[in-house]
């Protein structure tokens, strides 16, 4: 297995496909960027899939090859952590539609030799999951000991249990929802309009001259970033403090620290993310509604998942996907008869809490995973 090129860090792979998309398109070929950690055991029973959020990537627990920054979920994944390469075979795949290695609007369309741009098909969360399943088939992974994700990663986790219930033994869905609310869609639409209103967007055909709609994407990120933080957290960190000055400027510079912080978040985001990918992935999230194909009854959606163990975690200061959304999921799982655990944890960090230092999250995930292994 040491020499098997399918396994390891920063893998890139193209599969012939086709991948049948919800939009009715047979998409091919399919590019994947992914990482694996640990070793698949002899009875192939120790695979864990980690699903990333909107702008995440496959570097879940390794240093980013370009920026050198540590992986985005090293609090949860790594030696001695709840998800541990010593015990688990861990896979993290960059989502379909992204710009960080898997097929997305900035990928080259083999039919034209140019980036897809807006000719890339509109994708859904279910399409992302089907793509992951296609890759796992290639890696020889049958069923999954666990699928774990927060935010949009949690949406993928829930979709996994509905699309492939027989392949998922345990599901951990954190800070997530079973459907995007009007408010969720509204915030995303602000972001999309900021991008599409940027003259540099040019109907998504901006790759040739390397002059992307950075200003629009930065505003989109600024609006979204607010939703990831709590009001109390913002107040504690920034309050009304001024940025590098003693008095208000009576102008429109970034007088306040929060303005300066948001501008920095927006601009630095444009260095690593593609505006069209942002459009496509936010669209996929907005289309997300697990109950829609089941007459709006979420319990029916989970009917086939009643043999999967679920762990649902929310955070008290998360107003993007508040606890009520998690309770909605839990009630549906109860009605479906699935074994489910649920807790609302306390954290000052808002929606982003699942990525940050919340020790209880680790002990809960650890206990839940070990119980699934029959070793408590």
């Amino acid at each position, binding site marked *: 297995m040491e020499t098997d090129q399918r396994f390891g860090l920063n893998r890139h792979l193209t599969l012939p496909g086709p991948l049948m998309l919800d939009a009715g398109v047979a998409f091919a070929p399919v590019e994947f960027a992914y990482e694996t950690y640990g070793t698949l055991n002899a009875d192939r029973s120790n695979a864990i899939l980690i699903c990333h959020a909107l702008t995440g990537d496959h570097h879940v627990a390794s240093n980013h090859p370009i920026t050198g920054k540590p992986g985005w979920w090293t609090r949860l994944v790594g030696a001695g952590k709840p998800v541990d390469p010593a015990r688990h075979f861990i896979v993290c795949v960059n989502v379909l539609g992204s710009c960080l290695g898997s097929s997305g609007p900035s990928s080259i369309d083999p039919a034209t030799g140019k980036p897809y741009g807006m000719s890339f098909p509109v994708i859904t969360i279910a399409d992302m999951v089907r793509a992951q399943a296609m890759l796992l088939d290639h890696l020889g992974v049958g069923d999954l000991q666990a699928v774990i994700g927060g935010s949009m990663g949690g949406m993928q986790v829930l979709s996994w249990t509905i699309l492939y219930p027989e392949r998922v033994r345990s599901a951990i869905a954190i800070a997530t929802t079973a459907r995007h609310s009007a408010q969720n869609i509204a915030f995303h639409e602000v972001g999309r309009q900021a991008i599409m209103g940027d003259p540099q967007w040019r109907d998504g055909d901006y790759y040739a001259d390397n002059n992307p709609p950075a200003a629009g994407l930065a505003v989109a990120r600024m609006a979204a970033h607010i939703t990831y933080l709590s009001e109390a957290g913002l107040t504690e960190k920034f309050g009304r403090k001024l940025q590098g000055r003693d008095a208000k400027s009576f102008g429109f510079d970034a007088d306040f620290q929060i303005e300066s912080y948001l501008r920095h978040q927006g601009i630095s985001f444009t260095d690593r993310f593609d505006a069209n990918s942002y459009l496509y992935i936010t669209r996929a999230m907005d289309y997300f509604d697990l109950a829609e194909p089941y007459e709006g009854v979420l319990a029916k959606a989970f009917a086939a998942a009643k043999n999967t163990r679920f762990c649902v975690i929310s955070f008290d200061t998360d107003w993007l996907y508040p606890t009520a959304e998690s*309770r909605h999921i839990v009630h549906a799982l*109860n*009605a479906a008869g699935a074994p489910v*655990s*649920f*807790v*609302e*944890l306390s954290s000052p960090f808002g929606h982003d809490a699942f990525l940050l230092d919340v020790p209880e999250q680790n002990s809960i995930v650890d*206990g839940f995973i070990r*119980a699934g292994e029959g070793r408590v």
Partner: protein
Amino acid sequence: MSLRPDLQIIADNVTPGSRVLDVGCGDGALMAELRDKHHVDARGMELDRGNVATAMARGLSVIQGDADIDLAEYPDQSFDYAILSQTLQTTRRPDLVLDQLLRIGRRAFVSFPNFAHWHVRWSLLRNGRMPVTRLLPVEWYETPNIHHLTINDFRDFVTSRGLTVEGQWFLAGDKLISPSAANFRAEHAVFLLRR
């Protein structure tokens, strides 16, 4: 670690291999015992976040929820037993919670502190103040026990609802005592009910 005496009675009388919902499961002590020694498929509900986190870290299936609100989401007769230990007196509507227990579970274990125990009566008679006892250790203004009841109150309620008592156990000083004059002698009661 030994179980609280009322929980031990319940653990000893649950059919091995059955499905159990423990409402107000605390840190999951009873659930862990049922899972590990009686091969029971145990699920729990608990109001306190810290207790839920502890129980989940033990690998138990527990949801953070409120017996007064969240029981409505469980399907009819989806458990062999619903258990309510030391929780009845803390609910806003104990009557409705009991209705839910016997809707969700084919049988229900209910345990509660007996407010008619002689020590409580004597304390109230002698001092004229709300008693603070071993099983009711909190002052009136901060007690979670908002619906005190006696064994006789509970028996009357069971009769008025036409429920069947399949078992009853009485405890004083953490020891089983005979049913005679239980309303006076027992600190604590455990009932097994069905419709």
